[in-house]
Each structure stands twice: as structure tokens, then as C-alpha cells.
């Protein structure tokens, strides 16, 4: 089971090796997609992969450290009214989450592949790509 979470760190949790504990104690495969944490705390977008029971335990552990955990259904949104299907975002996306459908010539956004890196946001000339975090 693979899910993306937005973690909000309070200042007291900022200096602990929390992702290390998730890997070591709960055998969760962690993939840090975005992180901005300093001594005052901060935010991290983390993809966690593992059996459902271990993920549950891992989340309980995070909560015990006062880390706020929110699962992310969507981190980036593509506004179909604003999009002109130009495709400038396609070559910017590092994981192939934005692709040109060669039959319809529309730009298809695959949210599951998106790692919320945000590279497409300022590349879009019609501000159709929105970062929701």
C-alpha cells in the first residue's frame, strides 16, 4: 500500500530523525517528495509504502511525536478550463505524470505518478497547474 502524506512538524519534533524511525521500526519504505523543515518545524510530503497495519502503526508513532498527518489525495490540480492543452509542462515533469495523449492531443495528468515537486506550477503559461499544499 502506497500513500502520500503531508506531515506538519512542530518545533519540538524538528530535530528528531523521524523518517529514520519509520524505516527502522516499522519497515516502511519512505520517499521524501518535498521537505522544508528548520528549527521552528515545517512541512514534508512523504510517500509511505508498506503493509496497511505497519502504516497504521507508523502514523500512530508520528502522532505521538505531535506530527500532524494528513493523507493527500491530490497535491497538484490541473484546471481544465484554464488549460489550453499546449503541453509545455510535459517536458518539465520529471516523472512523466503529464503526458500528451497522441490520439486526442490532450494533456493527461496522472495524479498517482505526481510527486508534488511543483516544477510544472510556474512553467504553466495559463496558471492551470495549482499546488494545493
Amino acid at each position, binding site marked *: 500500500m502506497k500513500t502520500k502524506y503531508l506531515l506538519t512538524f512542530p518545533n519540538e519534533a524538528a530535530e528528531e530523525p523521524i523518517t529514520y524511525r519509520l524505516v527502522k521500526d516499522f519497515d516502511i519504505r519512505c520517499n521524501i517528495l518535498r521537505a522544508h523543515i528548520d528549527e521552528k518545524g515545517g512541512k514534508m510530503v512523504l510517500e509511505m509504502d508498506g503493509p496497511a497495519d505497519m502504516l497504521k502503526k507508523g502514523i500512530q508513532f508520528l502522532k505521538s511525536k505531535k506530527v500532524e498527518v494528513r493523507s493527500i489525495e491530490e497535491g497538484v490540480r490541473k484546471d481544465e478550463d484554464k488549460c*489550453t*492543452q*499546449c*503541453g*509545455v*509542462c*510535459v*517536458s*518539465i515533469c520529471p516523472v512523466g505524470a503529464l*503526458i*500528451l495523449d*497522441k490520439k*486526442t*492531443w*490532450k*494533456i493527461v495528468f496522472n495524479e498517482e505518478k505526481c510527486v508534488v515537486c511543483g*516544477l510544472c506550477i*510556474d*512553467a504553466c*503559461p*495559463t*496558471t492551470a497547474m495549482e499546488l494545493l499544499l
Partner: protein
Amino acid sequence: MVEEKQLRTYAEINRKIESKTVSVMTAEEFKAKVAGEGLAKAAKDVDVVTTGTFGAMCSSGVMLNFGHSDPPIKMQKVWLDDIPSYTGLAAVDAYLGATELDETLNMFHGGAHVIEDLVRGKAVKLRAIAYGTDCYPKREIESWVSIKTLNQAVLFNPRNCYQNYAVATNGCSRVIYTYMGKLLPDYGNATYCSAGEISPLLNDPLFRTVGIGTRIFLGGAQGYVAWEGTQFNAKVPRSPNGTPRRSAGTLAVIGDLKKMSADYLRALTMYKYGTSLSVGIGIPIPLLDLEMAKYCSVRDADIYTAVFDYSEQKRARTPLREVNYSELKSGEIAIKGKKVPTSSLSSMYKARQISNELKKWISKGQFLLQEPIEKFDLEREFKPLDVRTKEGCK
């Protein structure tokens, strides 16, 4: 060279359009027909081929007339939703350019955005100042205008519809922001800006049917080719099929903004570069003879352009390689041994929509073909701006 036997005239085509018996195909459909049935049969069966493009065209803007206030004002400076407009014309005429930014240089709001708002029927704030004269005593005004209140709102774009364009990439070690979009370091991506085989001027590479007066699809309404576009340059290397291998011809186009639609005119912000306007243009190509049919049968694999490193900050960049549109549209090209993802700045989806829409207009008898009143001068030289002396101008 293909034998130049006339197949049909403009008058014959227009009679068929009026009687709704014209045979019209989009460029895509025509190319597929040629591939399946051969050129001679396709040329015999089809009267008109419709093309389309929808891309960033910076050299765009609208001529506006506001009407006179009471007492009247001779506007000296004008702002529309805080975007300065040029008013060095008669009292209440102004030209709003797509790339003009507000005075805080906020790139997310420029002339193009005001043009899109006007097309969408939104009210726009007008502010003007003046020095006041005996005949135009008023010295300032604030009011609201919309597409309905304006006397004229004429889209007049001095350079649109580039016949082919460069491919941009970035060989330096930092991200660069250009009018060709965001370019990732170390040849991280490459962007191009032409619809390729369905783009209007690549289907009439030597301007046999597109010239001054040609009636076109412009921003969702009927418009016209007003003149050659600025920087028009026909003297570039060409492939045996006649298509230019570099940026070449351009068009100045004109049409009534009041009849246009935001589906085909869209404001753009190229981050850290500025604003621009995406303009939808469609041109019908009459298959007057076998040569025109041959031109319209050109495929992406036979249309070439060159890749340039946009981190090279000079006028004449060195081409890294030549590439065809079939390769570009595949999503990946090789640059210096590296596989580089490509993507388009111009919308193929919209280009296809435009060629279909124009086909519909022609089939329904709503759009007649106009033979060019005058053809373009293909021998004109494209000159650079050098720092020169007064005498150097002779």
C-alpha cells in the same frame, strides 16, 4: 516539380461553397487521404484544405476607440485595468499591446489579460490623463469600458503565425526562463512552437495562396491577412518540398475582437519573462492545382527545424542539430548524445479544433475564400540591428 495543371479557380470553389457542394478536408484528413489513395485522386476530390495553429504570439494587440466624454478629453496617457496603452494617436484612440505589463511589473497581469477580459465581456477600468486644450478641456477621467461600450475593438497583430520556429534547449547549469518557457539545465528539456504538418504556412510554403487580403479564421471569428508580418523572411534554407528549415514567413492579421472568443484567444504568462497572447489562426488552402495539393500533403517527418541553446546570449546562436516534427512530437530527441524530453508551446489540440471549425464554416457556406489582393515579396531581406553611424544608414 509537379506538373502545374489547374484543377479549379477561386471563383469555382466559392460557387461550390455557396451551393454547399464544396469538398473540404482538414489538413490531417487530407494527408491521410493522400497516403491511402494517392496524390492525384486526393487532389481531384478535394477543393479546400483547412489548417490551424494556436500558440503564443507576442506581437499582438487591440486598437480601441472609447468614444468622447463630456466635456471631451484628448487622452495623453491611458491605463486599462492599470496596463498602460499607447495613445499617441487621435483623442480617444489607443492601442493595447499584449506584452505590456502594469507599472509594478506583475507578470501575471498584462495587456494580454485585459484583451482576454474584454473578449470575455468583462468590464475594464479606464483611466486617462491629459494636458487639456481649448477643444479638449478635460484633464482626467476614470470610467469603465467593455466590449459592448467600445466603438471599435480591432485585433491587429503585426506578427503572428510564424512559418516554422526554432526548438529551444538549455546547455548551462541553471534553469533559464525564456519566451520558449522554462528550460531545465544541462539539456533537461526542449520546447518547440509549431503545429508542424497542420500549421497554416507549412502547407503553403511559398505563399502561393496566402497574401494580403486572404480571409482567415482569427480568434474564433473571420479575419484577414493585413500585410506581411514583421520580420518576414522567406530567404532561409528550404527542404525539397519547399518548407523552410528555420523561422521564415510571418503574417500581420486583423479582425473584429467583438466577434472573437476566449476559446481561441488566451492570455499567457511566461514566468520571469512576461506576458503574451495565445492566438488561434486557421487558414484555408485552395487546391488550385497538383502543386498546391502536393504542398498540403507534407508530413511531419519531412518538415525540419533547428535546435538552439537559449543559454547562449547572442543574436545568432549556433544550431545544435536539425530535427523533424515527427521526432519532436515523439516526445524525445537526442542532443549531444543525451535523450531530451520535448514538448510543445503551441496546442495541437486547439490547432486541430480550429481546422475542424474552419472546415465547418466552409461546408456550411459561411466562409468564402479570398484570393490575395497582392502577394508577398519573397525576396525581401531580413536585416539585423547593428550599432551604426548616421552615415551607415545610407
